[in-house]
């Protein structure tokens, strides 16, 4: 009697366990947004869904463009799917759509580092009418988006890391905008100390993106490239990260934490940094161009008292900006690839990029827009920093495809370890070099 009951009880517990594990394995993504209930299906419209970002004004502007398209095209309804802010999470969501070969999303907004990894899931846009417009865009990005002769994505907006600085505070403390990291350190320290003495205990010198994620790869790549330390892995597939210049500049950055940058910077992404900056509590910020128009809005404490410049220089004598930016790609699993491609090309067209540049300071990928007077009036730095945008340093995504994500994760985790004081820069990079050899086989 006991024996049987015991068996039964054990069996029940094991069953519970199995269900738990199965739950683990089939865990639904926490971030998948609920699909909006289908409305007005009476007219049998073709629904095209765009998976788009929502950082800053992104979502708003994408919806605006979608509305314009809907107005002009009777039979089509473009819907915008809101996706997670962190690129890594967004990639996770996309991969689940791809694994399921889902037709739910037709157009994907993809990061500049993904075309190599994801090419097999997208159509060749050149066959859907992109061939005639593609030459208007920045050639470096078009090349980046072309995999085995296939144009997997049309450039939508480009990004490059910029230094935001407070013109009023520089004037108050009689300083010039910094051109080297040493100057930045010095000026940030002076302003931070001064402002704290005057009573703003929450004031910090410099905020950037130090959380353990892709943004840290971008930040650290800028430090290293500006210090003549290479680009982690060179385009000809050589692992270059373990060098003295890289060690030196990462140690320097680790020294900022707790001095000119708050200790919490090792947990910050773009929006966390912007929140501090826009609240008027930072003298300098490293961020992408999207923060420019937001910082100039009425609710911003820094409206009209800031400017942007290229990032400071290290040993190389010139600052470096990581190439960022997003593209639009059409899913191979879409039910209406022709219409989806038309939507993607519309979104990336001259007019729409212009609208986004003026309203959201999103950098166009179309060369001619950098000479458009209306665009230049809204964001004057587009003209003055044109060289920064066109010379931005690419992350080693092409050289390492399809392993870029693992490479970048190994890199940012190892830099993060140095920033939080868990390891020394020299040891971390030596270890990283071996890790990268294992990962890539170079």
């Amino acid at each position, binding site marked *: *009697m*006991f024996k049987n*009951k*015991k068996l039964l*009880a*054990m069996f029940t*517990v094991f*069953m*519970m*366990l*199995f*269900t*738990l*594990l*199965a739950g*683990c*394995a*089939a*865990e639904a993504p*926490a*971030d998948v947004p609920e699909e909006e209930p289908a409305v007005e299906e009476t007219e049998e419209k073709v629904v095209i869904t765009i998976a788009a970002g929502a950082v800053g004004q992104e979502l708003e502007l994408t919806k605006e463009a979608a509305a314009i398209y809907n107005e002009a095209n009777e039979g089509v309804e473009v819907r915008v799917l809101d996706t997670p802010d*962190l690129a*890594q999470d967004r*990639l*996770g969501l996309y*991969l*689940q759509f*791809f*694994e399921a070969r889902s037709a739910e999303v037709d157009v994907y907004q993809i990061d500049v580092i993904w075309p190599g990894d994801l090419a*097999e*899931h997208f159509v060749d846009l050149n066959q859907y009418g992109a061939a005639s417009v593609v030459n208007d865009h920045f050639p470096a990005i078009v090349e980046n988006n072309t995999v085995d002769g296939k144009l997997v994505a049309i450039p939508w907006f480009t990004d490059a890391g910029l230094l935001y600085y407070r013109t009023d505070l520089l004037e108050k403390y009689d300083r010039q905008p910094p051109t080297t990291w040493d100057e930045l350190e010095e000026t940030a320290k002076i302003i931070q100390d001064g402002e704290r003495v005057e009573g703003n*205990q*929450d004031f910090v010198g410099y905020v950037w993106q*130090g*959380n*353990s*994620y892709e943004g840290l790869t971008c930040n650290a790549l800028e430090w290293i490239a500006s210090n003549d330390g290479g680009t982690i892995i060179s385009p000809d597939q050589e692992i270059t990260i373990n060098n003295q210049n890289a060690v030196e500049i990462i140690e320097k950055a680790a020294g900022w934490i707790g001095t000119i940058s*708050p*200790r*919490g*910077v*090792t*947990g*910050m992404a773009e929006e966390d940094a912007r*929140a*501090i900056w826009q609240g008027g*509590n930072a003298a300098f910020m490293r961020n992408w161009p999207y923060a420019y128009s937001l910082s100039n809005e009425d609710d911003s404490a820094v409206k009209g008292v800031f400017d942007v410049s290229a990032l400071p220089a290290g040993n190389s004598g010139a600052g470096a900006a990581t190439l960022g930016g997003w593209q639009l790609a059409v899913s191979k699993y879409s039910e209406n690839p022709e219409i989806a491609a038309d939507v993607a090309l519309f979104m990336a067209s001259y007019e729409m990029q212009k609208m986004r540049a003026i309203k959201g300071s999103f950098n166009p990928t179309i060369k001619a827009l950098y000479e458009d007077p209306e665009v230049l009036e809204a964001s004057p730095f587009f003209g003055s920093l044109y060289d920064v945008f066109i010379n931005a340093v690419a992350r080693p995504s092409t050289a390492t495809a*399809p392993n870029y*994500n*693992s490479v970048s*994760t190994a890199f*940012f985790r190892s830099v993060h370890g140095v920033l*939080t004081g*868990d390891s020394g820069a020299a*040891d971390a990079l*030596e*270890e990283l070099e*071996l*890790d990268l050899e*294992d990962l890539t086989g170079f």
Partner: protein
Amino acid sequence: MIETKKKAPLVSRSKRSDLAKREESLAYKLLIPTIIILLLIAIYPLGQVFVTSFTDRQFASGQETSFVGFENYRRLLSITIKELPPALDEETGDVKIDSDTGKVVYERPIQILPREPYRYREYKQFNFLGNRYVLGATDPDFIDAIRNTVTFTVISVFLELALGLGIALVVNSHFKGRGAIRASMLIPWAVITVVSARMWEWMLASNRVGFFNTLLYYLGLGDGQIAFLASSNLQLAAMVAVDVWKTTPFMALLLLAGLQTIPNELYEAGDIDGAGKIRQFITITLPLLKPAMAVALVFRTLDALRVFDVFQVLLGQSKYSMASYNYFQLIGNRNMGLASAIGVVIFLIIFVFAISYIKMLGVDSDEA
């Protein structure tokens, strides 16, 4: 309860009545639909995870999959301990001494740890009997994830049990507005974890925007810049805090149910016999609450070992739990084979916990 088993008369087993036998077989028949459903929804996917764990399958990729045997497991779980010899000065041949600390300098682990066939990375260094050792692992992140998860589970479940018991005792007593309190105490548990994790993210913010930094600052502790979620020695504590806040009500609810089954007469008899409240708690409440406590502990422990959402939302790639490391390998690195192996290892770890609970607490024993 194990004792009661031994005292059970052996006669009853051999002389079981026909009725009992028939009832028992009916019980098994009634279980059949459940078993079939479980086979379909649990055993099948589980089997698939097992099979995938022996392959190098890539997630969301057209790449061909091949069978790799136990390689994924070896990559995950291989550990080694090596002695670190003291570093010798190249010129004199003497043992190097750090000029600042006066301590012996040892060889660096990266030189000592094996690199073939898999590379071992440093996980920890420790001293034993005057020698210096390094613990190397092929996947220190996963070993760390296991450690984080187990630490998290032990601390958070213990705190939840202690606090939950306290709350249960309070709401079990008679006072005005008891119903309202019982209902409202469940609110934290009812909030979706991802949402409450975001809420805690704001409260734990690394400057005075955050509630905790502001509070501590006004109490004169810290400089208002404590990075709860970014500094590695505070991260686990923050996770425990979020989890305790969220699941203590659940624990309290399970214990409350147990408390209500204890007949009041026992306490009355205790009063008559002159037992104080503490004595009553130890000799009446605790023993009779044990079955409910066992169930609550099993539930919470198994649940805590699978913790995913809090770690994923608040810590991302900076510190992993077993489940968030699994997610990262599957989604981030697209190593479906390796991720499946992780799933199996998690399963086995939870299994061990479940078995030890059954043994320790006698969950399975017969109350009749």
